[in-house]
Structure formats: C-alpha cells, structure tokens
C-alpha cells in the first residue's frame, strides 16, 4: 500500500481513538452546575398533621355594611388525604431501594426561588404554599395552613400545620411564615400590591393574623401563587440570590440538589417531610424543549414522564403498550386572540363583529385542542371557574359577517373576492408566536375563514412581545385563566383591571376600555361568596363577548405522557401542581 494511503489510515485511526478518549473523559463528568448544595441529611419522619379545614366566618361584628358570606373558600380536605399519605409512606420502606423518576419538562430557565415567579420548584414537588387550588373545583384549600378565618373584611387569621420543617431542618412556624410573606412583598412588588398586606401579627407559634389595607375576600386564593410559596426567608436571604438552592429554604417532599439552567433540576426525597417519607428516592427533571424529542424520549424509555405532549402524542401513547396519556380533563389555560381596539381596522364595532362572526372558533378549537386534550372556549373562563348560562360568544355566521361588512361600507367593488371601501381593501394582520403550537394553526385557519368572508388576512407569527406593538389586529395568546381560583380576578386581568377594577391598563394588550365593565368588576369589591363572584364574572364576560373584546378559542388541558411504571400520579388541572409525595415508580 502506498505510503500516503498508509499514513492517511494511521492518522484517521489515531484521530478516532483520540476522539473516543476525549469523549469518554468529557462525558464522564457532568457540565458545571450553576447551583449546588449538599443534601440535608434524612431524619426521622414527622407525625402526620390533623385533618384540616378552611373556614371563612361572616364579619358580623365588624360593623361594615358588607357581610362576607360563610365558607368562601369551601371546606376541603387536602388533595393528599391522611390515608393516601400513609399508604405512600408505607410504600417507601427503608429496606427497599427507592427508584428515581426521570421527567422530561419544557423549560428550566427560570430561577429556583419561587418569589421570582418560577414554577420549577412548585411543579417539582419542592415548594409549597399555605394554600393550593383544589383539583376538583379550583377553589383554595389548605396546604401548609390548616385553617383560614376571615375575622373582618380586612383581617384574616391563618392557622398553620404543625410538624413542618424546611429542608434545612428549621421549623416552619408563624414567625417563619410572617418572614416569608414579608420577603415576598419585598422582592415581588406586584404580588405585594395584590396581597395588600398592611401588617402581620404572630398570635402564637401556629397562628398568623394578616391585616390588609382594604378588603381582600380572596386572600387564601392569592396565597396560592408561586410567589407566595413559603420559604425560610432568613436562610434564603443569607444564601443570596444566586445560591438559593443551598439555603434548603423550601418545605416540599423533594429537596433540590442540583440545578443546571436549561438542562436539569435534580432532587432527592425529603424523608423528613411532614406528609411522610416519599415513595421515590428523587426526581430528575430534564429540560427537553422540543415536543417531538420529549415524546420520543418517553417512547424510547429514556424518561418516565413527559409534560405538555401534543394531541398527536396523546393518540400515539394511548395505542402504544406501556405508555399512557394522562390529563385532569379540565382546561385551565385559554388559547385566544387579543382584538386590537387602537389600530383602526377593528376599532369599528361593525368590522370587529363581522370578523368575529366570520371565524368558526369552535372548528378551530377542534384543530388545536381535539377531544381529550381541550375544549371549545366560547367564553374566556373555563366551566370550572365560572359557568355562565345564557352568556355566549359571537357565533360563526358568515352571512351575518357579510351583512355587517356591508353596513360598515365594505363591499367587493373590483370583483377580486375581497371587500374594500373607498378604494382601500379591508386587510387585517393576525399575529402570534410559535412556542405554543396552537397559535400558528389558529392563525392560518382564521386566515382561510376570513378569506371566505372577503376579508384579506395576513399571518405574522413572530414572538410574544410583539403583542405590545401596534402592528396587529388579532394576536394569538396562551395564558392561564384560573389564577388564585378567583373568576373576577381572571376576567379583570384580561381587560386591564385588578379584581377591584383599579389600575386600568395592566396586561390589556387589546387596549379595550369600557366604563360599564369597570362598574361590574367594582361590584366584586369585598364580596367573598364565590357564587356571587362567579355571577359578577359572568356579567363581565357577557359584556366582553357582546363587544368581541377578546376572541377565546380553546381551553387547553395539561397533558402528560407517562410509562406504566409511574404510580400515584394524579394530574391536576393547574400547571403549578405536578409532583407531590404520592408519585412513585414501580420496578
């Protein structure tokens, strides 16, 4: 063999060997972590807490004209009942080596500290709040609290669960809860404004009294958001912003041990957990942003659990042995369009209504959220949040759309199939962003339907922050609509108001404004009865629907793919709650 050929082969062989050597060395060590901490030592299990209730008492002794009704936050048992907790604990014996669950999640790009609005710690079973939303009806129920009593419209007394320790072994008592909420107010001004806490008083080691600056009938609900998760404030502050993990400042059944942003979040079981020893040794959350990759990783057996799977994935998993799709069967997020009231095109009520009648929203819902993965959203809020008989959104009626366009002066004068007025074609821009697969599909379907009605539509799928620019007429949006379990709050935030109708402009991307709506929302003021609040929300939704102020399309379910080894997983309709002390993995 000629010399050059021999040299080439030798060189390539050496390169291959060198490469394999480098790979073996490099892959043996994980990438540098951004947050690391020693795992607190496992200690003896804590006694289970007593059964809990939330009660809200009438403020009969306050002298105020408005009397909050009883049991706004209905009495509920925690989702994990005592019996279930005992079973979970029993399954986690010391003699059997517990498995670790590997979960494929979408993003791991936010900080771990819940006060920064991040969900990772809550979803991962690491952080807990005083209250959480019930899986059954999304009302607030006790979690680290055992009871909430409204003493008067501006005073709440909260009883705390005993036997709760932070991951660093410090006891969670009334002082710790007070410090945690003070930290939330300090570091998350928006949350502080919403809570409106004037002062907090430690009545005894398990009782905190909260005074608000004005009536806060939904305070337990407001304490379910991730920013209000209970942390060991002193430890977290001492550790510093970039080292939250090392503080051991959370209380959940799993203790974070390593967090590499956008890569993985590892945890180990908190054997000191107030609910008992968790069935798993730990949970490994892996960021797999690509939906197809996440689904294929589950199919390949590389992960046990995949979050946010596609409708196609649901169909596939339900026909593949060993895999299942799981959902709570209730949509807590809405897929919708903002309607731009400031751009001109849709500020004409006739044109706006014509557009809303020209789009078959129910058919589009069937495309983006087929049966089993979501439902048609005629109104903004899902049934679980507010059922509004007699209130309906704009119906699909192309003929009516044509009539409305003609009334507005738009007719097809040049025979090109599109209406025009004064020589100007009616053209609307449909915006959206690609990260939610529903939005491009919605935009293209609407474009075709509007074209049938003689309205020229241009699709511009760019990214979400474009919603704040005056370049679109309809803008696709995906958002949670069950915040704090309060229907009034969730209608309000989409029309630029707080639940008390103050501060117009927040999150009102369509620039919609209606004094009638402000008046309706203002009625909620200090109303604590949930049925009354639902009624007020329905009145507001009727106005929103009549004016086509928003165009809801679908309520999307949280969809999970799991392999058959996963046990004890009960999907919750809200994205904040994913792993708890019940989830396990059989051998």
């Amino acid at each position, binding site marked *: 063999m000629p010399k050059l050929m021999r040299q080439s082969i030798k060189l390539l062989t050496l390169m291959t060997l060198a490469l394999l050597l480098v790979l073996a060395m490099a892959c043996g060590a994980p990438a540098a972590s951004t947050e690391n901490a020693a795992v607190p030592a496992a200690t003896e299990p804590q006694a289970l807490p007593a059964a809990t209730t939330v009660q809200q008492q009438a403020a009969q002794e306050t002298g105020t004209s408005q009397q909050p009704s009883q049991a706004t936050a209905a009495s509920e048992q925690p989702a994990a009942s005592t019996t279930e907790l005992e079973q979970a604990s029993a399954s986690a014996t010391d003699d059997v080596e517990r498995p670790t669950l590997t979960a494929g999640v979408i993003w791991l790009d936010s900080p771990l500290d819940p006060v*920064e*609005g991040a969900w990772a710690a809550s979803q991962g079973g690491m952080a807990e709040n005083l209250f959480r939303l019930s899986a059954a009806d999304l009302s607030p129920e006790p979690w680290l609290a055992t009871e909430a009593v409204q003493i008067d419209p501006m005073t709440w007394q909260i009883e705390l669960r005993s036997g709760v320790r932070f991951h660093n072994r410090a006891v969670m008592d009334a002082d710790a809860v007070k410090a945690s909420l003070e930290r939330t107010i300090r570091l998350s001004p928006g949350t502080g404004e919403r809570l409106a806490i004037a002062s907090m008083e430690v009545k005894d080691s398990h009782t905190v009294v909260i005074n608000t600056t004005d009536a806060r009938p939904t305070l337990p609900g407001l304490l379910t958001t991730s920013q209000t998760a209970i942390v060991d404030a002193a430890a977290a502050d001492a550790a510093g912003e970039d080292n939250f993990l090392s503080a051991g400042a959370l209380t959940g059944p799993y203790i974070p041990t390593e967090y*590499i942003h*956008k890569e993985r979040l590892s945890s180990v079981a908190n054997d000191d957990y107030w609910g008992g020893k968790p069935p798993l040794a730990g949970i490994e959350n*892996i960021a797999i942003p690509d939906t197809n990759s996440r689904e294929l*990783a589950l199919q390949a057996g590389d992960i046990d659990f995949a979050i946010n799977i596609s409708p196609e994935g649901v169909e596939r998993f339900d026909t593949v042995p060993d895999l299942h799709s799981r959902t709570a069967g209730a949509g807590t997020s809405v897929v919708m369009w903002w309607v731009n009231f400031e751009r001109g095109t849709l500020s004409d009520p006739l044109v706006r209504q014509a557009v809303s009648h020209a789009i078959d929203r129910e058919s589009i819902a069937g495309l983006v959220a087929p049966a089993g993965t979501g439902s048609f959203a005629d109104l903004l809020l899902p049934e679980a949040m507010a059922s509004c008989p007699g209130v309906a959104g704009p119906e699909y009626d192309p003929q009516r759309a044509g009539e409305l366009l003609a009334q507005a002066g738009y007719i097809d004068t040049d025979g090109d199939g599109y209406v025009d007025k004064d020589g100007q074609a009616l053209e609307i821009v449909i915006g959206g962003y690609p990260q939610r697969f529903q939005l491009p599909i919605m935009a293209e379907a609407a474009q075709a339907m509007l074209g049938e009605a003689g309205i020229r539509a241009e699709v511009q799928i760019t990214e979400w922050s474009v919603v704040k*620019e005056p370049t679109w007429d309809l803008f696709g949006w995906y958002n949670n609509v069950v915040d704090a379990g309060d229907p009034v709050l969730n209608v309000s935030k989409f029309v630029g108001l707080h639940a008390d109708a103050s501060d117009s402009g927040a999150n009102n991307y369509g620039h919609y404004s209606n004094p009638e709506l402000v008046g309706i929302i203002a009625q909620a003021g200090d109303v604590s009865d949930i049925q009354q609040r639902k009624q007020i929300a329905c009145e507001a939704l009727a106005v929103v629907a009549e004016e086509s102020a928003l165009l809801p399309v679908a309520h999307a379910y949280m969809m999970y793919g799991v392999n058959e080894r996963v046990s004890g997983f009960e999907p919750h309709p809200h994205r904040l709650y994913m792993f708890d002390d019940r989830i396990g993995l059989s051998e």
Partner: protein
Amino acid sequence: MAAYLIRRLATLPLLLLGISGVSFVLLNLAPGDPAEIVLRQRNPGQALNPTAVTAMRTELGLDAPLPVQYVRWVSQAIAGNLGRSYVTEQPVARQLARRTVPTALLTAAALTLALLVAVPMGILSARQRGSPVDTVARLVALVGAAAPSYALAYGLIILFAVKLSWLPAFGYGSAAQVVLPAIALSLAPMAQLMRLIRASMLETLGQDYIRTARAKGLSERTVAFGHALRNALLPAIGATGVSLGYLLSGAVIVETIFTWPGLGQLMVGAALARDYPVVQGFVTYIAVVVLLVNLIADIALRVADPRLRFGREGM
C-alpha cells in the same frame, strides 16, 4: 508564507467588525423592546410600568444612538466582556465558555465521522466509477445533501432509540449519547466532502502526469494512491474548514432535538427569549471560530501544496 499569514490575520478584525456590526443592526431592527423583555423576565405576570421600562432602557444603555451602542459593545467585547444575559443575568462569555465543550465534542465527532466515511468512499467511488460502490456512495451523498438534519435526527431516534432500543434518544453524559447526534450532524458535510473528493480524484486521474505514470508501467493502485491521491485530497482540506461552518449551523437544530447542552441549544433558547446579548455574543464567537479554522485550513493547504505557497510568495 509569513507575508500571507500577516495579510490574513490583518483582515480578521475587519471581517469580525463587519459580521458583528450586521448582527448588531439586525438584532436592533427586530420587533420587541429588550427593556420590556428584561422586566418581564424579572417580574413575570406583572404589569409593565412605563417609568420602569424607561429606567431599564437607560440601565441597559438602549437610550443611546445605535452607533454609540455598537462602539460601546465593541470596546467591551475587546476586553472579553460580551455583556450579560437578559434572562439569566450571567455574563455571556461565561455561558459561551460553558457550552463550548459539548459543541466542540459533537462537532469533532461529526467531522471525524464525516472524514472517516467521505475520504475512503470518495476515493473508491472515483476509482470504481459506475460500480455498485460508486452507486452507493453517490446515493449516500445525495441523501446527505438533500435530507434536512431535523428529519434525519428524528429518523435516527425512531430507528435506534425507539424501535431498536440500542442508543439513548437524547442527553449528554455518556459516550453512547454522542452517537446519534454525531451521525445526524455529520451526514451533510460527509456528503459534500465525498462528492468533492470523488470529483477531484476523477479529475486528477485524467491528468497528463497520471498518464505518464501509467505509461511507465506502474500499477493502477500505485498510480492512484502514490500519485493521484495527494493532489485529489487538496480541495478537501479547504472544504473541511468550510464544513465547520455547516457543522456549527447544523448543531443549532441537532442540539435542540437531542437536548445536547451546547452552543446551538443556547442560541435557539436565546433567540426565542429575545436574549440579544447572548445572540450577539454567539454570532461573534462563532464568527471568530469559523474564521480561525478557515485560516488554519488555508495554511494547511499551502503547506500541502507547494504550488500555492510559491505562487503566492512570488507575487
């Protein structure tokens, strides 16, 4: 050679200024206000206060004219400061450094694989033109050039991870996890190199000095490997440098699909999050790498080919 090297090195800063300048302008033309993006990241779910937005624009230096912003960025970049990520608030240079090793591993594996297949297949294909080996090689080259890397990546995962369970579907941490992404990434440069080497070998085998070698009675193997190969491989040296650019751009897709924590995945995440400092830093960093590798390839070509070396220096 020294003069050539100095000339090439002197053009590098100008090229980098051009690339980073275009990138800087394009990013600033993109819709969306970085100040609002930062505030949204830091206060998720909360309404934006116009005063806070204005203050953040000042804090980020976005209130200055674009040329001033660019000059400021360049002066900091020269000192190794590429700014801070809007999302993680970490230094961009640190993020790029941390992601470099995984991408370097993946591209090195893909490039080695491409060379290991492309060089022998290209030579064999040329020597046995029209044979079944040639047909297979051309087919591989055609598929490699035509198939999008994402389709190939998903196909590999379905076959080797889902159906056969031979290899993991994603991840970074073991030698087995590099196999599928390296194959997916290597196919395009492999196809390009194979076609180039085949064409170059065929051209070389038809030249006068080869005919002379044959006339002297040398065996066909000696003619091919002893006389033709060196000249035939020369274009591949330059093309290998160019391939690195393809590999790095392909890595953006492949790393996302295989959840490989490299520069490509960082770039995709940064682009989607409108994390402009990271995108700008990434573009500049990749430009430096590609320009340097191409320079090395050109130097290697001159070392291997005396005609280029002497020709240039004689000018």
